[in-house]
Structure formats: structure tokens, C-alpha cells
């Protein structure tokens, strides 16, 4: 009797979870779909952002997320390889893991401030795609390390044994057997990292994104607009907030569809891997 009650409770919480997502998407969809059309997606904003489109935001978000991945992926995978294949248990290892875990827990806005102080000011990059991508890269690093390590751990030790038994060195084993076998898992982690970076607002507020810029970026040192920041800007600081309301919802809808699409790719790919493996 109690078991059935508990199962009911669990099912209810799962339903609430799923329902929350459906409600959010529905809410945004109903209010924002009218704003979505080809102009919206391919033109920059006009008339003090009450009309036009969000092309620069889309370009900006894509540049930032890909840039973040470019930074986080090599460093993250290399770290994961070190941690999983080379590191010996001991104080140094514990310290490194502590560092990574703490990095994962740093609030986004603190990343933003760090990015401002370090990349924008100290390294004199200015408010730019470069500074933003680097800041987002640091933020995405723990995500990549976590999923890459998981992927490496999932590679059976029997492969490593077989390789070493044939006279391969440790690095050859990693490069020729372990890494290729772990690649699908690493790829999934990369997609998830990408979707995380795409949605972050605080880290890019001080480091890359601006209220408005008249042209698309021509170099990594340019400022850009971005989807999450644009939502914030339209909803709080625009000249006519009510008039831009549909645009806000439209932008939000585009962002959430982007993020969901990325996550869906990762989830489906992972499910196919698990079925095959």
C-alpha cells in the first residue's frame, strides 16, 4: 500500500518535471510565435529595436558558444586524459579534483566579473568575442572534463591490456584505442557544453555582449550581441518595453529551441550509443 503511494509520488514528480518544460515552451510559444518569421531571423533590429530581427544575436551566440568550445574542448579532454590515465592517487590528484569541482560551482556572474577583470581589462582584449569566448570556455571546462572522464572510464580496461600486451606504449594505447573508443561520449559532452554556453547571460554581459551594435562582427576583438543578453536588454532597458514584448518572447523562443535542439541531439546520440554498446 505504502509502496504504491511512493510510486505515485515518484511518478508525480516526474510528471511535474516534464510538465514544467512543456509549460515553459508552450508559454513562450504562444506569446512568441507571431514574431518568428524569416525577417526576424535574418535581419538586424531596427527602429530602436522595436522592429526588425535578431540576426546579430544569433550570430553572436553561435560565435561565443563555438569559441567557448574551441577553448574548453582541447583543454578539457587533455585534462580528462591526464586524470583518468596518468594521474596517481595522492594529495596532488585530490587537490586538482577539488579545484575542478569548485570551478563547476562558481556562479555565472562571478565568471563574468572574472572575465571582465582578467580578459577584458588585464589582458587588454576589451569587450570582445574573444574575451567572451574565453570566459565561457572556462565556465564550460568542468562540463567537458566531467563527460570526457566518464567516456574514458567507460572504455574497458581489457582494451588497454590487449594493447600494452602487444608492445604498445601508454600514449600509443590512448591515442589509437582508448581515445577513439571514447570519442562518442566526448562528443556528447561537447554538445551539452555547447548548449550550456549558448544560454549563459552573466558571463557575457561584461565581456562580450552589448546593447546594440550596428554591424556583424568582423574580428574577434569586436563586440557582439547575443540572444540571452538581448532578452534581458529588451525586457528591462529598451525604449519601449511593451512594444518589444513580442520580440522578447520571440528571442526567448529562438534561444530555447536552439538549446533544446542541441540537447536533443546529445540525448538521442547517447541513447543510440548505449543501445549499440
Amino acid at each position: 500500500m505504502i509502496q504504491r503511494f511512493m510510486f505515485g509520488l515518484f511518478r508525480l514528480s516526474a510528471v511535474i518535471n516534464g510538465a514544467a518544460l512543456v509549460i515553459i515552451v508552450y508559454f513562450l510559444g504562444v506569446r512568441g510565435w507571431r514574431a518568428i518569421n524569416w525577417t526576424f531571423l535574418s535581419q538586424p533590429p531596427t527602429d530602436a529595436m522595436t522592429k526588425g530581427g535578431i540576426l546579430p544575436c544569433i550570430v553572436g551566440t553561435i560565435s561565443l558558444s563555438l569559441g567557448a568550445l574551441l577553448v574548453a574542448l582541447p583543454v578539457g579532454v587533455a585534462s580528462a586524459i591526464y586524470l583518468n590515465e596518468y594521474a596517481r592517487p595522492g594529495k596532488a590528484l585530490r587537490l586538482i579534483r577539488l579545484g575542478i569541482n569548485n570551478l563547476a560551482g562558481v556562479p555565472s556572474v562571478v565568471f563574468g566579473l572574472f572575465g571582465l577583470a582578467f580578459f577584458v581589462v588585464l589582458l587588454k582584449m576589451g569587450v570582445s568575442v574573444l574575451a567572451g569566448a574565453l570566459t565561457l570556455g572556462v565556465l564550460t571546462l568542468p562540463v567537458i572534463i566531467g563527460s570526457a572522464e566518464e567516456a574514458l572510464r567507460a572504455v574497458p580496461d581489457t582494451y588497454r591490456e590487449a594493447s600494452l600486451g602487444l608492445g604498445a606504449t601508454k600514449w600509443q594505447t590512448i591515442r589509437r584505442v582508448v581515445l577513439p573508443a571514447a570519442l562518442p561520449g566526448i562528443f556528447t559532452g561537447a554538445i551539452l557544453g555547447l548548449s550550456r554556453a549558448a544560454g549563459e547571460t552573466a558571463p557575457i554581459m561584461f565581456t562580450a555582449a552589448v546593447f546594440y551594435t550596428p554591424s556583424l562582427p568582423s574580428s574577434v576583438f569586436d563586440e557582439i550581441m547575443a540572444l540571452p543578453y538581448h532578452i534581458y536588454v529588451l525586457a528591462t532597458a529598451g525604449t519601449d518595453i511593451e512594444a518589444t514584448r513580442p520580440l522578447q518572447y520571440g528571442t526567448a523562443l529562438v534561444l530555447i529551441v536552439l538549446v533544446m535542439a542541441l540537447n536533443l541531439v546529445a540525448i538521442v546520440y547517447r541513447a543510440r550509443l548505449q543501445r549499440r554498446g
Partner: protein
Amino acid sequence: MDNLLRMATKNLDFHYGDFHALHDVSLEFYDQRVTALIGPSGCGKSTLLRCLNRMNDLIPIARAEGGVFLDGRNIYDPKVDVVTLRRRVGMVFQKPNPFPKTIFENVAYGLKVNGNKDKAFISDRVEQSLRQAALWEEVKDRTHDSALGLSGGQQQRLCIARALAVEPEVILMDEPASALDPIATQKIEELIHQLKKSYTIIIVTHNMQQAARVSDVTAFFYLGKLIEVDNTKTLFTKPKLRRTEDYITGRFG
């Protein structure tokens, strides 16, 4: 006929951390002979096998003392290159473990990591090794298919081909047929008969009948000590020690 002494251990002691796994083991392995290591679970036979190609080095708390010699040279000498050692002393594992690659790539793997780049040479060696492992006829039309599509017995023969490709002198087999069905097991045993003409083979098996069928010399281990070693026929029909007799008659296991 005098066979060449290929490998030997001399007063070998082995520890996993505090656990004393091998006690003062001295044993000789001759060319063109199959030596079987038998004994109950935990007696140290697999540990000994893994000392012969230093696979135990992978375990941080493992420690070997005493000598293990390949062609008269102590393989535990710090100047010895473990990578080269493992090319000369190959290993086939209990559970077939082909790489998630094509059949061809599996057999070619050892050659490639050794720096071979000559495609013609590699291709030839792959075919040669697959023939030696009695697998060529079955896979010759699909060497570029995934190795994971083969049956268990075929995968194990593939692993043997893979080990043969680098032209070892010694082949270590850790219960090579224990994960296979009787027909596949028979094929492996026939293969061992063929291979011993050209290699030194050392096989660990928990299956006494297999040891009797396949080996020339049998060494019986118990609790990390070498109890008795003799010609297989003699050991199984006229064992010298009581404990040996008890084991092979199944009084304990």
C-alpha cells in the same frame, strides 16, 4: 632431443602489497614445448604468467623479487625495455578482447605501433597470422568488417593472430578457452598443437583434462608455491607428491 631453454624464473617472489602471492618459484620453459600451469583458484598461476611479460607492472602495489629470464637476460633489469619485451613475449587473455576495429586493423595493430609503415608488408603479415591462427579461410572475404561481429571462438583466434603478427618468441595464454564452447575450445587446442612447433607456449588452465591433452610439461601450484613439475604424462599418472595426486584426482579444487 634437447630443446632450447627460452624462459626461466629463479627464486621468484611476488607480492600484491602485503599479500605474498608467489613463494620462491623456480621454473623452466623450453622452446617448442607447451608448459601448463595448473592449480586451484588463487594459487598464483595467473600471477606467474603475468610476471613473464611484466603485465603485473600495471598494478601499482605489485612487487617482484628474484629473477625472470628471457634467453638468459633478467627481464626485471631496469635497463630492459618493457615495450620490446612484450613484443617478444605475447599474451592471449581469458576473455577474447579484440579492439573495436576491423579484423584487419586488429591484426595489424601490433605492427603499426612498432612503427611498420609498409602497407604491402603489413597486408602480408596479417594474412600470414590469420592463416597461422586457422582463421583466414573464415574471414578472408571480410577483413574490413568489424571484429566484434565474430563469434567468441573466432574472436579468440583473432586475438591469437593479433599476438602472432608481431612474431613473438613466447606465447602466454591465460585460460584461453575458458570462455568458449566445446567446439571452439577444440579448435583452440588444435591450434596450440600447431603453434608449438614454432613457439614456446605457456598456458594457464583450470581444466586439468585440457592440460593433459595439450601440454608437454605440467607445473602444479598451490597457495603460491610450485609443488611439482614433470612431464605431463608422468604428472598425471604417477605424481610424486600426495598433494598433487589429491588435486588431480579431484579430492580438492
